[in-house]
């Protein structure tokens, strides 16, 4: 077992000693030995903790991949919807749900990103005093809102108060509430990383503050901001609670944001999860794997953009 190696290695070196070298005095060697033992113990502990943390991760991935992969290999999965397909029957695809998730994610991002990035710019570049503290506090509170509360809030506004139907756009609105705080926080961190010297260099050239932000600060932080946005998006795309409240499932492809139901991967998973018939169970696993893959792709895209856009040396 690999975790034991460092400890045994230490023990071996101790036992053999270095041939030809004089023995250290007892006081010195005693101290060294107790420290090395502690070091070895800490190392074993850290490795164990790492392995323990890895167990659920590998477990989840293994069960989802092993039970879901075969449907993903079928090209119909990526081209067909579930229209007319019952739990008893095999076949059909997830394109309606994939499309819905991507569409709602895109709308969510289109609304959240400008608001969140500008909020972060305000907090880092302009915010002083009471207002800035209030805004920062609000963002903290938003960060802590459970997703089901965001869903219920939008339901109260959209359906109960305004009298509209439960549509995809309402889902996006609730996801906006969840996405804004994470993007504000990540963008803030990235803007804070931009050295003040660069801002001063720009001011010293007679460049106004707003232009310094647009042309120097934001480009310098660009890759980090994009990474934060994609990670935030990946997170909200897996959200389920607001979808259960605001986005009823449908088996057909739907693209209308303001009318009718629109399927998403989380609601597709939820739809069939209580079924005992094998074709439906298979589809649940496959949809789960598809969602994981989708988020994985977003994460990878985020990293790629971060690498391409990172400050060149």
């Amino acid at each position, binding site marked *: 077992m690999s975790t034991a190696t460092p400890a045994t290695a230490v023990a071996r070196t101790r036992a053999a000693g270095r041939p030809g070298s004089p023995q250290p005095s007892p006081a010195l060697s005693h101290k060294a030995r107790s420290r090395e033992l502690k070091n070895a113990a800490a190392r074993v502990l850290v490795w164990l903790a790492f392995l323990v943390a890895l167990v659920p991760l590998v477990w989840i991935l293994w069960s989802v991949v092993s039970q879901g992969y075969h449907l993903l290999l079928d090209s119909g999965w990526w081209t067909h919807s579930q229209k007319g397909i019952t739990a008893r029957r095999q076949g059909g695809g997830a394109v309606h749900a994939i499309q819905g998730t991507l569409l709602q994610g895109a709308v969510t991002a289109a609304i959240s990103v400008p608001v969140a990035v500008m909020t972060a710019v305000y907090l880092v570049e302009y915010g002083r005093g009471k207002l800035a503290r209030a805004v920062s506090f609000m963002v903290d509170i938003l960060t802590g809102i459970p997703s089901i509360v965001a869903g219920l809030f939008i339901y109260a506004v959209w359906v109960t108060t305004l009298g509209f139907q439960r549509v995809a756009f309402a889902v996006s609105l609730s996801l906006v509430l969840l996405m804004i705080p994470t993007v504000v926080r990540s963008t803030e961190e990235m803007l804070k990383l931009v050295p003040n010297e660069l*801002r001063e260099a720009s001011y*010293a*050239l*007679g460049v106004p503050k707003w*232009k310094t932000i647009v042309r*120097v600060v934001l480009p310098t932080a660009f890759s980090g901001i994009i990474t934060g946005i994609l990670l935030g998006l990946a997170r909200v795309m897996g959200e389920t609670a607001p979808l259960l409240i605001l986005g009823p499932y449908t088996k057909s492809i739907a693209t209308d944001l303001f009318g009718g139901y629109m399927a998403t991967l989380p609601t597709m998973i939820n739809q069939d999860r209580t079924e005992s018939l094998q074709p439906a169970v298979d589809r649940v696993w496959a949809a789960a794997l598809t969602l994981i893959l989708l988020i994985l792709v977003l994460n990878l895209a985020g990293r790629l953009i971060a690498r391409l856009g990172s*400050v*060149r040396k």
Partner: protein
Amino acid sequence: MAKRIDVSDLNVYYGSFKAVEGVTMTVEPRSVTAFIGPSGCGKSTFLRTLNRMHEVVPGGRVEGKVMLDDEDLYASGVDPVAVRRTVGMVFQRPNPFPTMSIYDNVAAGLKLNGVRGKKALDEVVERSLRGANLWTEVKDRLGKPGAGLSGGQQQRLCIARAIAVQPQVLLMDEPCSALDPISTLAIEDLISELKSTYTIVIVTHNMQQAARVSDRTAFFNLAATGKPGKLVEVDDTQRIFNNPSVKATEDYISGRFG
């Protein structure tokens, strides 16, 4: 191009803390004026008031007058942004824009202020890089990132960037403190060349440097930590280093200080 700076009775504050007190001095055009003094005595702070850069620190403000020829930099209605176009600045650590190429770094001041036209920009970039003694080293890689240059080259790039907007005055805040002796020498040579065109003010901790490059030297000191810094005396560099009129100056220069 170069302008004279006349400072009278200037107090500089950060919030309620008085950082510099009662500075009155004249900076001659087409010459190099060096500010020397112990750390925390307010030389950099005072330097930054000459192009209103200290205002970017929250709470930074001044009392008194800074005249650039016959214009008061602190008169109401004066735009700090316009002041900074006239009075350029080079910082302690080289700070080229990391997202920009060498060319774009030099052209940044003009581009960001809306100057268009490739030909005009090409000319300015070449002239500024030549002016900063950097042209021959970088002319074949103008498209490469500015952050890829050595420290000394980066600092000369920053000088090129500062002179590209054709300021009247060039402020340098310890421009060599992050550089090795060879790069320092290159910058000092450059300063001697630039003084025929610009008014140059340089803050330095290196007294040999002040003696080498400057025509006039101002010695700043502070009574104790927490007290405001003061201008002790300003005179010809020769005089300051050989026969200063104040005892504290002599002590500082000869290394007998505190």
